[in-house]
């Protein structure tokens, strides 16, 4: 397990929202072909940190990000980096399912289209099918690719969003509480999917559910009040936490 290549190297990262110091001195190594879970109480900065990894915080005027975020050794906050190119490499799935109000096909095809991944319609069809299969939703929607993506159930919508995210062939997949709006059955489907995605991607998932973190991740990072308290093998964190704060959180005493 330790032989895996490091995909994201984050060093001394700081994030400020105006005067608020939201992320303090966080250093984390995110491995390739691994699911890394960020856990912690609400407002601890785990989502903020996640959004730094594909520069989604750029859209918030008040946010300032400092420190080193190295993707394959390259600083993603370098002046020469275009966030658009970065986001094609680092895909994202959001908390609430947010399909475009377009057809299922167009939802998935949009990313490949704007990045020019398909030369013709046949190739695009193939990408769409492959992505929907990877999103474990192909069988449910293959007969109605023209119907609107917003007409699907919550769980289906979220899997459609995952399919949309993988359609651009990203290397890292960020998931911001992907199951918080889903029922237990849909959650189980998405979790299964995350486990499958691990074969090809480096997956980073933010979650409120410790069971979920324990089920899907290999590495877990515990955030508290903007600090990274503990980071290590998931089994280790849940069975033998080193920090008393981690222990009280996973046993339900703070949160």
């Amino acid at each position, binding site marked *: 397990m330790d032989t895996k290549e490091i995909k994201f190297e984050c060093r001394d990262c700081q994030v400020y929202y105006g005067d608020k110091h939201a992320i303090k001195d966080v250093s984390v190594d995110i491995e390739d072909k691994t699911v890394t879970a960020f856990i912690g109480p609400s407002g601890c900065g785990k989502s903020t940190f996640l959004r730094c990894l*594909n520069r*989604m915080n750029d*859209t918030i*005027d008040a946010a300032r990000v400092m420190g080193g975020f190295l993707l394959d050794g390259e600083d993603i906050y370098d002046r020469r980096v275009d966030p*658009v*190119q970065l*986001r*094609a490499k680092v*895909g*994202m*799935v*959001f908390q*609430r399912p*947010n*399909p*475009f*109000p377009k057809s299922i096909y167009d939802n998935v095809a*949009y*990313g490949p289209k*704007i*990045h020019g991944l398909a030369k013709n319609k046949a190739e695009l069809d193939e990408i769409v099918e492959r992505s929907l299969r990877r999103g474990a939703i192909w069988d449910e929607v293959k007969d109605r690719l023209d119907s*609107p993506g*917003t007409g699907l159930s919550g769980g289906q919508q979220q899997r459609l*969003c995952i399919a*949309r*995210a993988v*359609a*651009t062939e990203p290397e890292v997949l960020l998931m911001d509480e992907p199951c918080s709006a889903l029922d237990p059955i849909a959650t189980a489907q998405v979790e299964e999917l995350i486990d499958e995605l691990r074969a090809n991607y480096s997956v980073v998932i933010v979650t409120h559910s410790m069971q979920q973190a324990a089920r899907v991740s290999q590495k877990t990072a515990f955030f508290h009040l903007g600090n990274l308290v503990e980071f290590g093998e998931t089994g280790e964190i849940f069975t033998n936490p080193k920090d008393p704060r981690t222990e009280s959180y996973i046993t339900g005493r703070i949160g």
Partner: protein
Amino acid sequence: MTDATANSPALPDRKHSGSLMEHTARTRRRNNAEKRFRAYGLAAIGIGLAALIVLLVSILSQGLPAFSQTFVTMKVYLDPAKLDKSGTRDIEQIKKVSTFGYAPLIRAAMQETMTANGIDPEKFGLSEKAAEEMISKEGAAQLRNFVIAHPDQIGQTVEFKFLADSRIDGYFKGRVSMASAKLDSNVSPAQLQLADALKKAGVLKVGFNWGFITNPDASENRPEAAGIGVAIIGSLYMMIIVLCLALPIGVAASIYLEEFAPQNWFTDLIEVNISNLAAVPSIVFGILGLAIFINWAGLPQSAPIVGGLVLTLMTLPTIIISTRASLKSVPPSIRDAALGVGASKMQSVFHHVLPLAMPGILTGTIIGLAQALGETAPLMLIGMVAFVREFPAAPPEGFFDPASALPVQVYNWTQRADPAFTERASGAIIVLLIFLLSMNFLAIILRRRFERRW
């Protein structure tokens, strides 16, 4: 035990709160207040509806007669001796004959028609001239235009539909009565009796007044010939200019302000000023147009181009405000989704946000246009109150020709003395209302079509 009593004060004994079948005084008061409020609401709606109905009924009852008109159909002999003295059928020679040269032809035709139908004007105590006066003064001009357009008809006898004089027309619409004719120097009861006889003979007929919609304005003493043709064209040209300028400028400005501009004091200042501009009285825009477009830029007066520019300035804040509101109402999750798959800012706006905001933008634009269509004050300042009889040319040259506008035409006609013009003003208001209603209807249809759920 001691701990518990020390920390929590002893609860008072619960008393029986009474039967649910009886309303307490407080409940009754609340229910009465609600009933009163509903009554106020109903009364307010009732007053509003009553005002609307009174308005519509008064406009329709006054304006609908403008759409019908009394015509006198006669056979006119186009006497070559009078119309083409040279006998060469040279159009330049024919044009030299003024409307005075045509009046005798009409008088003769009138005489002949009456004899043919066995009506003797002498029996009513009317001279030949008094009988001819029942035809509109526009009649000779109508005939002259016809002859100039068809010079080959000279020497023939043609059937011609003349406008009846506005008093005769008014008699059949109930505006003029025998009693009022006695006091009127423009019409005599005898002429009305003759008109009755002519109507019985089928010479005089009341029909739909296409001329009201297609004709240009007419002078003070021939209201029967006045129409809103030039005003409709002028308003149409201005709307084209407003749409072509205000929509792209307004939408581009809103997209920039809403999606791209940084939030700082300068954009705040712009925002406040746009809101203020929306509240500026429209006549101020008229003064601005007069000073800048006419006096400084030297654009022609009374031209749709100037009116269009002024109305564009007036409409822009409305469009910007409504466009920004509809851009704001697009859920941010859609923007996140687009950025998340690697769309650029512009792609996310143009592929996702703008289509979702489209219904709101279109509604705002059409409401802005409707507002501009009904605007009078600024147009008066840039000279569109002028008396325009020439139709403007086809665009784009036509944008620089003098024209009138519907609301200004209404204002203009209400200033004139003859009650026939009041009728026409109400008729023009009906046309204006039809345009406004159809624009609002279009807004609703567009909104339905573009509306998508997310």
